[in-house]
């Protein structure tokens, strides 16, 4: 793969094998799920995607998950969740300490090698045990930034103000993003915030409650399959035509916070700009981040952005990015989209970005 240093025009990476998302499931996302352990929260979702494909856990070629110990405050908490996938006798399994979208990337890579034909990808997060605004400060540069404890809303607010100063948006426009997202979520029974939600007071100015994602618990799962196996398992598979992820310099003061060159580069490598998409599921937990992403990904007004309601309607940490891929795929499964872009992010102010292009075959 060409490195970021090359000045040559980036080339689109062509998958060597056709791989599709063939099933997607998610929990209802709730503010708190004290009565459920993580595996108890996860298991119904795993059963949902297995039932949709008729596969048993023992049929799955590769399992990959995403989660973070910091959310629950317990080391190796993901190993407990493995009980839910029947990890005995031993299975081929991996874990990323990140959103499940990155677990999907790893699973996709595994299928490309031909070592497996099917993969189960799941992710989950319970933000309710802790204070997620404070927890996320621990992912920041430990020398220069983390000792100041800047919380996730504060960092997003710095980005929002930069956009306002640049004339890219204003507070009413951000409120419009919030309102549209939660109205769209009215049709999403899994969403945590739906319908008319007050924009509320400032959390960290210029961001109000309505500009921020709800804090909640949830899980999601998808099944990937290659080639003919995908056609056997799903009437209209959502083929992954390209997928790529890129990262910005970690120091916030080095970046232009009004832009997301990493999203744009990932989209370019995933082939997103070759033909228009009809749907875009963007992982933009803050209203202002949708403004950045729409520009970086060159999305016109004719593209249906976050018809699920997006992360502003439900943002279970570590699952919200995988859900963007799942929601985009589900729209293709249902015949509501022919070509969709799915995006996932991680880190402060859109630090890391993953873009996938999904397509359904003409039916």
């Amino acid at each position, binding site marked *: 793969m060409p490195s970021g240093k090359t000045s040559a025009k980036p080339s689109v990476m062509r998958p060597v094998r056709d791989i599709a998302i063939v099933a997607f499931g998610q929990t209802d996302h709730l503010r708190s799920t004290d*009565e459920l352990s993580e595996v108890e929260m996860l*298991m119904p979702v795993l059963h949902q995607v297995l039932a949709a494909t008729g596969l048993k856990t023992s049929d799955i070629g590769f399992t990959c998950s995403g989660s973070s110990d910091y959310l629950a405050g317990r080391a190796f908490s993901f190993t407990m969740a493995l*009980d839910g996938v029947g990890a005995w006798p031993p299975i081929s399994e991996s874990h990323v300490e990140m959103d499940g979208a990155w677990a999907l990337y790893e699973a996709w890579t595994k299928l490309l090698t031909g070592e497996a034909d099917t993969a189960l990808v799941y992710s989950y997060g319970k933000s309710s*045990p802790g204070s997620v605004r*404070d927890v996320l400060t621990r992912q920041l540069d430990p020398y220069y930034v983390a000792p100041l404890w800047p919380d996730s809303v504060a960092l997003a607010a710095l980005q929002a103000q930069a956009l306002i100063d640049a004339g890219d948006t204003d507070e009413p426009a951000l409120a419009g993003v919030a309102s549209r997202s939660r109205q769209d979520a009215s049709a999403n029974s899994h969403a945590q915030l739906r319908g008319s939600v007050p924009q509320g007071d400032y959390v*960290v100015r210029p961001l109000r409650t309505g500009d921020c994602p709800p804090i909640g618990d949830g899980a999601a799962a998808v099944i990937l399959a290659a080639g003919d196996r995908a056609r056997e398992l799903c009437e209209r598979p959502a083929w992954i035509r390209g997928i790529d992820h890129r990262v910005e310099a970690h*120091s916030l*003061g080095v970046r232009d916070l009004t832009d997301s060159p990493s999203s744009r580069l990932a989209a370019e490598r995933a082939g997103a700009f070759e033909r228009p998409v009809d749907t875009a599921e963007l992982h933009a937990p803050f209203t202002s981040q949708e403004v950045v992403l729409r520009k970086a990904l060159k999305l016109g007004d004719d593209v249906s952005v976050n018809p699920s309601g997006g992360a502003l309607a439900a943002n279970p940490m570590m699952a919200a990015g995988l859900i963007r891929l799942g929601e985009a795929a589900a729209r293709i499964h249902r015949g509501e989209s022919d070509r969709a872009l799915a995006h996932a992010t991680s880190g402060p102010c859109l630090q890391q970005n993953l873009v996938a292009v999904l397509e359904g075959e003409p039916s």
Partner: protein
Amino acid sequence: MASAPSPEVLRAPLVVEFPFTRSLGPVQSAFLTGLRERTVLGVKTTDGRTLVPPVEYDPVTADEIRDLVEVSATGTVTTWAWNHEPRRGQPLDAPFAWVLVKLDGADTALLHALDAPGRDSVRTGMRVRIRWAAERTGAITDIACFEPYEGPTGGEPAPHAGEFSDPVTGIVAAARLDYTYAPGRAQTAYIKALSDRKTVGERCPSCHKVYVPPRGACPTCGVATAERVEVGPRGTVTTYCIVNIKAKNLDIEVPYVYAHIALDGADLALHARIAGIPYDQVRMGLRVEPVWTEGARFPDHYRPTGEPDADYDTYKELV
């Protein structure tokens, strides 16, 4: 033994606290030592830009960079956010603005706090200067915060050797996160049963194995377990070890025996201490029972029951 309604979910405070000790490379060491001496250092990139705060590798070319320069303690706000409710650990207790500040002479911005009389007094482009902490140790918090500044603009960055007496070579990054732990339905039932000096597991509806402590799922079948089953109190030692090193703060004389115990009716062994028998006489197959102490939340240890040893075939699947 039928599945019972879920008892009220348990909750307990859980504090995760750690003082990470981190070493500094030459650039970070110079920068943080400089702050202690009220000197702000940046580093030149391959293309001649000045990065403040400095890093050891060029973010564009990945080249190793070591060319330090001194920049001003005055600068310009490039973006800001008004924080009317400061949180624990943040630089100021009273409402303040988070700011990215491009110091005079720097090409990149530093994140910190700005002490300003109110949000109406803050804007992008405003001029600010560093307010130094009274006591400085070589940390980013040696900058107490920024404050509004109306004075001349600082000059060009000046070369700096980055050499100080008694350089700071490491930091202790203290972190504390507060959680409320809820163990979930299955483990709540297990802990509640222990308060009645009973041990409960859950049976898998598919393979019928009884897991203890129950976690709500069968790791073999990948399905939810729901049927609650009381196991024990007696059990069989499946394997054991002799502990010869005394753990800190542990009030148990060494050597002692730590064992896996398959409680009667359970398909998974628990672990516990064995006492009431010389340590060198503990053996696989030994039949044991729990010993409770007053007010304890779990058995203090297990002791021999005096029954004949169990046949290996009865517990070999659990070793």
